[in-house]
């Protein structure tokens, strides 16, 4: 094993680390706020839904509407929880994957692009859950989901997926090239 075969890990750019840390901080603040303001948040969402009965398909019969409101409130809460979980996890994913990219990609342009995609995608994607939750009272479950999907999940999720496959492809190419370049024993 030579020094060239075993590259030392390189720290990604500072702005990437800052975004990742901010994502984790946002996740923690979000999680804490969810617990601290649970009643207020639920009341706000419920009032918002009751103010728009047609949006949520409320029929004016308590026995029926109760279940509709319960499901919407469950999803509202799930959105907040998923934001907390994803922002926390994606913060770590940004750090790990951008460190891999900074270490193993020799081309400056490709490295910068992949790191930018990983960082924006990773930090933006969890915000979709927050957007979804916030839109549920005004737009209903399905419409809010569609908006969050096209506004946040699809663009930011795609950026992350493209960057990760690109990174995986470059790694595979590097492995193949290295094997070919090595003289047969």
């Amino acid at each position: 094993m030579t020094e060239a075969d075993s590259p030392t890990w390189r720290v990604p750019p500072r702005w990437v680390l800052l975004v990742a840390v901010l994502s984790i901080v946002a996740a923690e603040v979000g999680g804490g706020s969810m617990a601290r303001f649970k009643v207020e948040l639920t009341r706000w969402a419920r009032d918002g839904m009751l103010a728009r009965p047609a949006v949520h398909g409320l029929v004016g019969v308590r026995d029926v509407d109760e279940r509709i409101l319960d499901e919407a409130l469950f999803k509202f809460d799930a959105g907040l929880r998923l934001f907390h979980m994803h922002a926390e996890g994606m913060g770590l994913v940004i750090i790990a994957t951008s460190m891999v990219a900074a270490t193993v990609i020799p081309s400056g342009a490709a490295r910068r692009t992949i790191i930018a995609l990983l960082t924006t995608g990773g930090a933006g994607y969890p915000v979709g859950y927050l957007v979804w939750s916030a839109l549920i009272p005004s737009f209903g479950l399905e419409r809010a989901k569609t908006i969050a999907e096209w506004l946040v999940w699809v663009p930011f999720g795609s950026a992350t997926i493209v960057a990760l496959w690109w990174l995986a492809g470059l790694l595979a190419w590097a492995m193949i090239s290295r094997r070919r370049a090595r003289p047969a024993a």
Partner: protein
Amino acid sequence: MSLVPTILTALVVTATTIAPASAHHVGAYVPKDNAVTTNFKQVKFSVQASKFDVALRLFEAGPLRAEMRAHAATLPAGLEDGTRAALTAGDGPEVERRLMIFFAALVRDLALEADHQLARPDSTAETRVDTGRKFLEAIWRYYNLVDFAVATRDNKASVAVRLAFDEAETYVKPATGGAAPADPAGLRKPLQRIAQVLSTLIDASSTTPRRNS
């Protein structure tokens, strides 16, 4: 050995790629009991365990009784007092009969209200299907609690309600195999049948203090 870090890196990258691809999972909702069905189950299980004092306390303070009062206008006269008297006397079958009447009345009222809302000329077919589905869910949530009690007293009524419910469900289920969706207007007939069968059951049960089987 020189490939180990690269392989590990590739594994990490592949693993993290899978996560966003299978994302947009937004939680699975499982409908819960509401306050009335929860209280019903508490009272029922206490009666089955012959803990009538517990059942009476749960009934007195619970939402079941409050709901009986709220629906007093559409319920047989004296249903609440009779239920309390049966609990005080430790008469399990009588408690069951009265609770069956109560839930049958709730289901009948829901079926009538659903029929009324589906008859609105301004609603679209999609709205009718959506409204019908929601009412059927509520109807089944209540009827399911007392179906056994209904069947032991009037098996024909139980079968009739189940058949009508099954028929109603065909109008709110999405069409499969490229078939045209059923006309939601057809949903009204089984709902009317549910209301009619349960009205008859309530009338017959309200005048019969004991099971006849």
